[in-house]
């Protein structure tokens, strides 16, 4: 077992992909000479050459579409969109071409592209650079959306993403790059649609993904002091979604709180709660609740921004309201 950062784990996964498949290339804004906006691909251009580590113009629709085209041609591109906010400029290509080409061609085409991008706020980057939009993509049939919360999952899920013959949105979080965790030395993969019980517990199920997983774990520690034994479920992928793990958990704990960073209104937590209602209603000992981002554009000012993103205290308070 090695201790790796989230960034190192993703780097390791990318290097494996580059080394194992000569038709894998990395493409995106400032991934080469600059080394990647979050330094994930630092040094890659020197190692693998400009042919395979490709700096693009600032033209998201163009280069993401190019990646999709190369994938349809049978290559295995990994395209980086600097932040998920900029993916909106490429949304047409992702939603209309990548997600639908196979279906509309009657199965003749597949689109084995991995689109890496970075989500989340908390960096004082204001309203246009702080959004969590992964749940938008998780509504599009034909796409897969994965959301690793730690280094081990990041590597295991990236391996699966690279091997998957479908378009995968691989969503990272800017505040997780420095987080460190144990990564097994032996080769392993993590299938999509397999949630993880990040912490066992008996009194309430806290369901989270991406950076809200560490937040939920901290909330669970706070709740320990109240004698509340919280179970934390890390969804790991939003599409496909593993419903069984959290439904089983709710059967056991009888209570559920879903946490996500994006705006609470119309968010992915609503989907989780709907699933709980449909599949575990008779196990509920109170309403399934959610904690999401405040429904406002993210403000720049630090004290205001801090109010908009769920904290362990907010999650713990919400859980306490069930007791």
């Amino acid at each position, binding site marked *: 077992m090695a201790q790796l950062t989230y960034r190192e784990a993703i780097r390791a996964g990318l290097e494996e992909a580059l080394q194992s498949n000569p038709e894998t290339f990395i493409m995106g804004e*400032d991934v080469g*000479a600059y080394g990647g906006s979050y330094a994930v691909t630092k040094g890659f251009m020197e190692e693998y050459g400009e042919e395979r580590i490709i*700096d693009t*113009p600032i033209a998201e629709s163009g280069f993401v579409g190019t990646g999709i085209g190369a994938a349809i041609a049978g290559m295995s591109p990994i395209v980086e969109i600097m932040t998920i906010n900029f993916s909106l400029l490429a949304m047409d290509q992702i939603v209309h071409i990548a997600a639908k080409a196979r279906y509309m061609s009657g199965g003749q085409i597949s689109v084995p592209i991995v689109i890496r991008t970075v989500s989340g706020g908390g960096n004082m*980057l204001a309203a246009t650079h702080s959004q969590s939009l992964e749940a938008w993509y998780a509504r599009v049939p034909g796409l897969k959306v994965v959301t690793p919360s730690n280094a081990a999952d990041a590597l295991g899920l990236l391996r699966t993403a690279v091997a998957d013959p479908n378009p995968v949105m691989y969503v990272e979080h800017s505040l997780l790059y420095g987080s460190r965790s144990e990564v097994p030395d032996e080769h392993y993969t993590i299938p999509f649609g397999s949630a993880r019980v990040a912490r066992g517990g008996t009194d309430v199920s806290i369901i989270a993904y991406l950076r809200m997983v560490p937040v939920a774990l901290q909330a669970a520690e706070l709740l320990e002091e109240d004698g509340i034994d919280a179970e934390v479920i890390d969804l790991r992928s939003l599409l496909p979604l593993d419903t069984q793990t959290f439904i089983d958990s709710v059967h056991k704990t009888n209570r559920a709180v879903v946490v996500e960073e994006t705006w609470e209104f119309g968010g992915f937590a609503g989907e989780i709660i709907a699933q709980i209602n449909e599949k575990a209603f008779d196990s509920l000992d109170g309403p399934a609740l959610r904690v999401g981002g405040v429904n406002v554009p993210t*403000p*720049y*000012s630090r004290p*205001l921004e801090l109010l*908009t993103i769920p904290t362990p205290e907010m999650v713990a308070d919400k859980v306490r309201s069930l007791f």
Partner: protein
Amino acid sequence: MLRTMKLIRRFEERSAEHYGRGNIGGFLHLYIGEEAVAVGVISPLRDDDKIVTHYRDHGHALARGMDTAACMAELFGKSTGVSGGKGGSMHFFDVEKGFMGGHAIVGGQLPLAVGLAFANRYRGEDSLVVCFLGDGAVNEGEFHESMNLASLWKLPVLFLLENNGFGMGTRVERASAQPIIHRLADRHNVRSHREENGQDVFAVRQATLDAIEYIRDGNGPYFLEVMTYRFRGHSMADPIEYRQQHEVEPWLDLDPIKLLSDRLLENNLTTEDEVGAIDEDVENEVNEAIQFALDSPFPTPDELYTDIYA
């Protein structure tokens, strides 16, 4: 003009300092080295002209005469800031001054400029819109869509390209198949010019006056490319590993502020004493701005919910 350029310079140097002190957060993109462009372009504008710009917007704001203290307070995230502390460095706004915002998604401000100009023409006004953009933005689809629309409808837009040679860390030559960017304007039948002396504020001003005359005569949009140089990194987080010191140095000799003050002194248009007085004056103004920003309150939690809808 010398004073404004010095004000921009000092404002930004002190901003960098306070970024280091943790009083400013997020992205801070400095304009140092490019001051002649903002001042040369904005000084000949009329009050009823409008400006839209990108995220490297402090220089444009100060050149437009926006309140120094309110600009600094915005960087500090205070409620007295130009955008109430909600926008930060990349999103300065001052509608009264016709400053229609810094915009942080590359290329996003271009269609907005076209729309503002559309309104001017529709209402029969002869004011114009200056749209600053960087060399990185011309590769976005929005650039071409906007140029085409503005040209098609003969709208009064001055597309002002600040070519500092890099889109973040990527050289123009590695991003644009046509590195002589203003030639792209030909494809859309837009009159264009490249001003090579972008560090010379008089040259920039003269090129702008020519463009303004053309636009006010009702000829439609104009595309002015100004060659300049970003002395600092793309943002405070940029290690600038993609360019070499030997290529930076010749540009440092072309410091637009030094060029201007030397020229004024040589031609006896000013004295060392007067320059010293300007320095002192600017120093005081920026000190006061910082004090104002420090003393100002943060927005209250209630302000989270204000300004979402009209």
